[in-house]
């Protein structure tokens, strides 16, 4: 029986940024395979390349060297349009700063990505309602982001990330703007998301959040350190 196809696989990827003072190597020969259903946390000091790796895994950026496969398909030969389509339908993003659209309600923020993916209106409505209930914000659907707390905004962002039933959710410092207690609640929510079958890759400084992952990776100077396995495995 063959092994399931990895959600995303980076093979010896490097990323070099050209800078006026000389090129900066953000990633050096990184290889990482994320299997379906995994919960991976990547930690490390600022500037070690965590976010760069996350952006490569999320098809937001392309590596300078190496190869990247998303659900078995090589990403590098894809055009920008194709990568946009993958991000819209197969990947969910959660940002440190939430990036909810301030003029849209919680409901509309979650519905917008489904609408962009061409989901029928009735299905969108049902999915949005279910997702807001799922993140515990069913009662706050009509609220604008400015009327929500930081934790609530991040919950809406998580609902938005799940809206198109992605195979992979990537989160970049999702508790970076939240207090410890709220960060714990977000951690609980991520646990539930993963338990319900969504693959998660989280970049975080927060040791408590990283500890929830089944696979924890450390990065230093653009390289992945030896993996350690979390308590949940």
């Amino acid at each position, binding site marked *: 029986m063959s092994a399931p196809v990895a959600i995303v696989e980076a093979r010896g990827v490097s990323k070099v940024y050209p800078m006026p003072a000389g090129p900066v190597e953000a990633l050096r020969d990184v290889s990482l395979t994320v299997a379906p259903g995994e919960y991976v946390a990547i930690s490390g000091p600022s500037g070690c390349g965590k*976010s*760069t790796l996350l*952006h490569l895994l*999320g098809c*937001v*950026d392309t590596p300078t060297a190496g190869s990247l496969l998303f659900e078995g398909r090589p990403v590098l030969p894809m055009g*920008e*349009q194709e990568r*946009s*389509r*993958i*991000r*819209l*339908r197969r*990947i969910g*993003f959660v*940002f*440190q*700063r939430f*990036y909810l*659209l*301030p*003029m*849209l309600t919680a409901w*509309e923020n979650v*519905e*917008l*990505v489904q*609408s*962009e*993916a061409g989901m029928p209106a009735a299905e969108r409505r049902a999915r949005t309602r279910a997702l807001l209930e799922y993140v515990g914000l069913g009662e706050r659907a009509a609220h604008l982001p400015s009327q929500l707390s930081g934790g609530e905004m991040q919950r809406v962002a998580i609902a*938005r990330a799940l809206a*198109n039933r992605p195979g992979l959710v990537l989160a*970049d*410092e999702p508790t*970076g703007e939240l207090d410890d207690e709220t960060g714990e609640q977000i951690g609980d929510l991520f646990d539930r998301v993963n338990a319900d079958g969504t693959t998660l890759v989280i970049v975080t400084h927060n040791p408590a959040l990283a500890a929830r992952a089944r696979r924890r990776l450390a990065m230093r100077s653009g390289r992945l350190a030896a993996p350690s396995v979390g308590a949940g495995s």
Partner: protein
Amino acid sequence: MSPLQFAWRSLSRRPARAVLGLTGVAVVGALLFDMLMLSRGLIVSFRDLLESTGFDVRVTATEALPGMGPVVSEAAATVEALRRLPELAAVVPVRFGVAAVDARDKKTREVAIIGSETRRRGEWRLVQGADLAEDSAAGRPGMVVNRTFARDQGLGPGSIVRLASTLTPREFRVSGIVEFPFEAAAERMAGVTLNGFTRAFPSARRDEADLLLVASQPGVGAETAVSAIRRARPDLHAFSIDEVLERLRQAEFSYFRQVSFVLATIASFFALLLVTTLLTVSVNQRLGEVAALRALGFSRRRITFDLLAESALLVGGGGIVAVPLGLLLARVLDSILRQMPDLPSRLHFFVFEPRALAIHLAFLVLAALVAAAYPVILAARLPIAATLRKESIS
């Protein structure tokens, strides 16, 4: 959510900025709309005046404007010759003169006198009393006067007008009050028959005309009539209304066209600058949002359409407000410009035309596209990862 709805929500998010943008576009758009009306207003208005007379061809002795150059000699024979042309429906000789009248304050006033035949078409419009009739051999010749003259002299139907003279008395009986197409606001004017004209100006030669008004046969057209006159009488100068207007466009009215072109260009530039600046500032303030949307899978095309829709709402909204605002402004400017002396009171500088509105709308569409170009490029070419990184650091 469509790009238009999305753009509407984006603009509603900062209502003060949106209102500022709309107001700016409306004001600049109004100015542009006015300049479009001004660029052809005089020509359109002058055409209306010329056409209101019911004659579509003018014949003079030279290329000089009627009354400014040599007269048509042997006018009676010329008129008869032209009347025989099958392309022409009517030929009316016209004479111009300026006489003096003793005003009620004992001062003399000038009155412009037009000598013509009894009214054939629209040489004037009867307002009160009776129209000019053929003069009887005996008695005072008839005269029609305009309202300014009637008001100044206290004239009405049946009144006697006495032209100032040290020689034989020159008296006319007013039959009616009329409105001449080309009368200026404070101008005293009167119309008499050709016989009456020679009575008013005894020294004027009898068989002359300053201008021949010609009407082409229905269905023939002015150009054909002009050609027929040129063939029959190459010594005369015949002009269709279009040719008269073209001369005015090239000479007398070119000043207004140039002014309107320069002001329209400046207005267009400011409209573009305003909308481009607003959209660019707006995009720059939400680079993180745009990058996040792109990371979430929103295509460049979608971002482009969102910005285009935002530009269209700003320019379209402002442009719609610009139309009534421009019409109001045009009315005010028109009333100021029409105070210039010696201008026909029915002549307008700003004239609404569907064509001006169409050009205005076309410009708005173009402005919306051009104004959005830079912010669209900015947003569409945004490096997603670098922007997100920069935003999270900042």
